[in-house]
């Protein structure tokens, strides 16, 4: 059962990667990266159980935090680009 769930997660990660490469706008790509990150959290937890080493859960905690911070970072800085080129500063 765990192995079936792990395979399903791998399939979803491939789907997210396709969307990240394909997505026409920036926000599609950020969405795909965010989704990839949460699926990685699940993948690491499941792999930890499948391989019998529950120390992986520390990595899963770090991953969810890092995923959050990266998405917030991208969104915080994505609004600055075109506005900077058009000569207007907006915080």
């Amino acid at each position, binding site marked *: 059962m765990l192995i079936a*769930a792990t395979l399903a997660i791998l399939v979803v990660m491939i*789907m997210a990667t396709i969307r990240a490469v394909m997505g026409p706008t*920036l926000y*599609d790509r950020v*969405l795909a990266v965010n989704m990839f990150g949460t699926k990685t959290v699940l993948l690491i937890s499941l792999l930890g159980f499948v391989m019998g080493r*529950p120390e992986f859960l520390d990595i899963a905690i770090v991953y969810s935090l890092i995923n959050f911070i990266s998405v*917030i970072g991208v969104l915080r800085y994505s609004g600055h680009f075109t506005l900077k080129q058009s000569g*207007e500063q907006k915080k």
Partner: protein
Amino acid sequence: MDTLVNISSTVLLLIGSFLFLSGGIGVLRFPDFYTRMHAVGVTETLATSMILLGLILHNPDFMVDVKLIIILLMTLFISPTASHALANAAIHNDLSKQKDDKPDDEVKPSNP
């Protein structure tokens, strides 16, 4: 009792897998950014919670359960907030709400 726990853990894992598979299909096939966001944002949190609950039931060790509960709580906090932040940024930068038939790589600046 033991088989009940096993069965419920398996059922939760199955529901979780189904949910995020449907979220993944949604993100590939929906026509517009906002609809994709809806597919992913809703199913992702719920699927993660289901799978983590299934893992908690599957496992008797206390320390591991505490860490799984920590991941669950953090996902419940983080995942909806990230979806909100993404949708907010998209609205704030006036991303178009129609089907995207032409790729546009520029983020449109918002009207003052």
